[in-house]
Every structure is written in structure tokens, then in C-alpha cells.
């Protein structure tokens, strides 16, 4: 059921067309705005590069979040899944993974482009990508809780941002911190292992919270 | 030693303001809640043709 769910969500996403790659374009676009808003000096760019990449990634994931459950809740598919109580968790995990495959993963893979724009060296870029690969699943997990809570509300995007962004700050801190630690010659292992630990904890707790939020929304 | 009364005033002044705002908001919330409850009560009694009781609840 897990793989069937991943497959279904990815297929639906591909049929929708634009949605999937718009997130990527948005990511690159935001990251390109920062140098235009300031003096593009090598030193400044180097200093803000990792942070800008991470903030852009966070905003792109935020942008992709509403599609996670909203359509399925509206047409009743979420209800039908929830009725299969044994398979429900597997399907939910499938949806989360599918979402990450279509947002976090491609983001992490194009991040080196931004790294080059900001003049990061190869080591820093490697750490940036590693950090994103560990961190974006967490963004998806946290965002999914917010998106599920948002299902109950008539709030829309602003409320989603208000719920999701504060909870994502630790990911941002350690993700961007990893690159800076690498550039400063301190090594990024500590940051990356903290991200990995966070990912493990999040993947245990977040699906549970997400599932309860969905049950609340459909109640 | 420099005079710090501006900072103290700004801190305690805003603090007092916040307390006043909150107390005022609480009062308004309560008024509104009571108003709503009275309307609901009156409506219910009109429906249930128990008008004698509804009159008791009317203000004045």
C-alpha cells in the first residue's frame, strides 16, 4: 500500500504538469533575488549564500505544502484511505515520501547551481547538498503537520506559513550552520549528525501528529 | 550616572497599557458573550412558546 500510494501521488503530480517544476523555479528565483537587493560583493555573497539557499528551500517547500492534502480532502479520497485503518499509516507515509520526492529531492539536487552563483567552494556545496538532503524531509514532515491542521481552517496560505515556519527554525539553523562550519574549517559533522538525529525523531513523531490532525479535520 | 527614566517609563508605561488593553478586551468579550447568550435564550423561549420566562431575562 505504501508503494501504491507513492506511485499514485507521483502520477497525479506529473499529470498536473506545471506544479512540480514551478517549485524548483521558485527556489532558483528567490535565491537570485538576494544579490539584486544588495551589493553583490564576493565576500558578502559568500557569507549569505548558505542562509539564502536554506531560506529559499524553506519557502519553496512551504509553497508546495497546500497541495499535500487539500485536494484529497476535498474529493473524499482521504476519507476512503482513513477507512482502511490498517493501511492508513502506510498510505500517509507514502504521501509524505511522494511529496518529498517531488519537492525536497529536486531542490537539493539543483542547490549546487545556487552554491555556484554565490561562489561557494566544492566542499561547501557538498555539505550544502548533504544538509538539504537531510533537512528537506524534515521540512516536509513538519509542513505536513501544518498542512493537515490547516485543513480544518479556512485560513489559507498565511496561516499555513504562521504554523509551519516557526517550527522549521531548528532545521534552518543547523542546515545553514553546517555550511558555515565547513567554510570556517570546523567541519560539518556535528551539524549534519544533529540534522540526521532530528530527521529520525521527526519521522517518528510527525506522521503521528499529522494523522491526528487529518482525523480532526475530517471529523 | 545617566538618567534612565525614559527607558523605565517606556517599559512600565507600555506594560500598564498592555494590562489595560487586555482588561478592556476581556470586558468586551464578556459583554459580547452575554449579549449572544441572551439573544439565544430569548430565541429559544420564543420558539418553545415559553414567553413568560423570556421576559424575565430581558434587560430593565
Amino acid at each position, binding site marked *: *500500500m505504501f508503494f*501504491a500510494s507513492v506511485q*499514485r501521488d507521483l*502520477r*497525479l503530480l506529473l*499529470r*498536473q504538469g506545471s506544479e512540480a517544476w514551478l517549485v524548483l523555479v521558485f527556489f532558483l528565483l528567490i535565491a537570485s533575488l538576494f544579490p539584486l537587493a544588495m551589493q553583490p560583493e564576493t565576500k558578502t555573497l559568500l557569507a549569505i549564500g548558505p542562509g539564502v539557499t536554506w531560506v529559499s528551500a524553506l519557502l519553496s517547500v512551504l509553497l508546495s505544502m497546500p497541495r499535500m492534502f487539500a*485536494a484529497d480532502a*476535498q*474529493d*473524499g*479520497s*482521504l*476519507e*476512503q*484511505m*482513513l*477507512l*482502511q*485503518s490498517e*493501511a492508513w499509516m502506510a498510505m500517509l507515509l507514502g504521501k509524505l515520501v511522494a511529496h518529498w520526492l517531488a519537492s525536497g529531492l529536486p531542490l537539493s539536487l539543483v542547490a549546487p547551481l545556487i552554491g555556484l552563483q554565490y561562489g561557494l567552494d566544492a566542499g561547501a556545496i557538498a555539505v550544502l547538498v548533504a544538509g538539504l538532503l537531510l533537512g528537506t524531509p524534515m521540512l516536509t514532515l513538519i509542513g505536513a503537520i501544518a498542512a493537515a491542521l490547516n485543513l480544518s481552517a479556512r485560513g489559507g496560505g498565511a496561516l499555513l506559513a504562521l504554523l509551519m515556519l516557526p517550527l522549521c527554525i531548528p532545521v534552518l539553523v543547523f542546515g545553514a550552520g553546517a555550511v558555515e562550519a565547513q567554510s570556517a574549517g570546523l567541519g560539518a559533522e556535528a551539524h549534519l549528525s544533529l540534522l540526521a538525529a532530528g530527521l529520525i525523531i521527526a519521522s517518528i513523531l510527525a506522521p503521528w501528529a499529522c494523522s491526528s490532525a487529518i482525523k480532526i479535520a*475530517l*471529523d | 550616572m545617566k538618567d534612565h527614566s525614559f527607558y523605565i517609563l517606556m517599559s512600565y508605561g507600555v506594560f500598564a497599557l498592555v494590562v489595560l488593553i487586555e482588561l478592556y478586551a476581556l470586558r468586551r468579550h464578556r459583554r459580547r458573550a452575554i449579549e449572544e447568550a441572551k439573544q439565544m435564550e430569548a430565541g429559544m423561549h420564543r420558539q418553545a412558546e415559553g414567553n413568560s420566562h423570556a421576559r424575565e431575562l430581558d434587560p430593565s
Partner: protein
Amino acid sequence: MTANQSQLLAANIYLSRGRRRLLSNLGFTLEPGQWLALLGPNGSGKSTLLRALCGLYSFDQTPELRFAGQTIKSLAHCPDLQLIFQGHAPGWKDGLSTLENLRWQSSLDRYGESALGDRALEDALDHCGIAQQRHLPFAVLSAGQRRRLAMSRLCLSLWARQAQARSDDRERKLVWLLDEPSTALDDQGQDLMGRLLHQLLEQGGLAIVATHGAMPGSPQAAMLKLGS
């Protein structure tokens, strides 16, 4: 409390929507081979009651709900029941074709591991008269055709039940909870719906159907009138 063989019993049902109490102290019993028609004006709580019986909506207080003498949490949480619920939004995706939709739904419904391959899916669509639309996206189907897709799901559940009954070990009763299944259907479609229901009851299944009118071709129902 006579614990009749596979009797569905519900009692002490209290249900509200928002601050409005819809149902109080409602109850019913249903024997295998019987169906219950929920009647009542719009907003009288028919759909809400169906959702609540599935465990998708909370009752105001825990009602008494038993199947075959066993207390159950909801119809979806009962190992002896195979539940098919079709509400207002039956969960079809606009982006998938008719056949893909049915395939996904039947993998959800998991008729045991009985091999109901694509062959059976197409047969079901054919039986319900939308075989020609099987590769069209759901979004372009008409309201009546959408209902027919829903019926092909019911059809599949019947066939799977039959296949299982032949080979099977343990009896799992099929129960349908349908929300106005014959709206938007033409005469022929309504007829088919009635026949499907008839077949279900002959198999010893149960059904609770929110409806406005009688269902042609189906046996007499127990009636439950909701609302004032």
C-alpha cells in the same frame, strides 16, 4: 439483548453538527439481508449519521454499537464486516482515468487477496455501462457516469464476496453505506442500482442508504425517518 446471528444493532445515538443537535436517542437493528433507508429532509443528519457510523465523525457520546453481539467502535473497525462507504465526495481523482480510479479504489478495498485483476475491473465497468469511458479522465465524466463508476465499485465488491464465499473460511459480511446513490442516474441506471442492492441482500449483506425516494427493484426496506 438477543445476540442474534450477525445482527447489526445501534442504539443511544446522539449526534450534533456545530452547536445544533441533529439526532437524539436514535437506534435501529438490521438483520443480514435487510437494508435500512434513511429518510428525511436536507440537513436532517442523514449524511452525518453515515459518516459517524463509519467512524469518520464523532458521536456526542459513545453509542451502543454491536455486530453479532460484539461491541464495535464503528463499522470500519470491525473485523467481521467489509465496509463500503460512498459519501457525497466518493474519492475519485480528476487526474486519473476511470479505470485507474477503480483500480486504486479496489486496491484500497482489498477484497482479501482474491485475484480480481484488471479483467474484473473492466467487466465491472462494462456491467455498469461505462466501459467505453474507461480511459477517459474522471474530470470529463458526466454526473450520471460518475455514479456509474461508483456502482462498478459496488459491483466489484459483490463479485469479490462471491469469489470468497466459494473458497472462504471465515464469513465477512459485506455492508454498504451509501449516500443518495441514485441521484443523477437515468431510469436504467436506477434500475441497475436497485438490482445491485438486491444482489447484496441476497448474499446476506447489509446496507444503510440515505435516500429521497424508493429504490426500484429492491426489496422493502426498514425505514428510519430523521428530522422533526
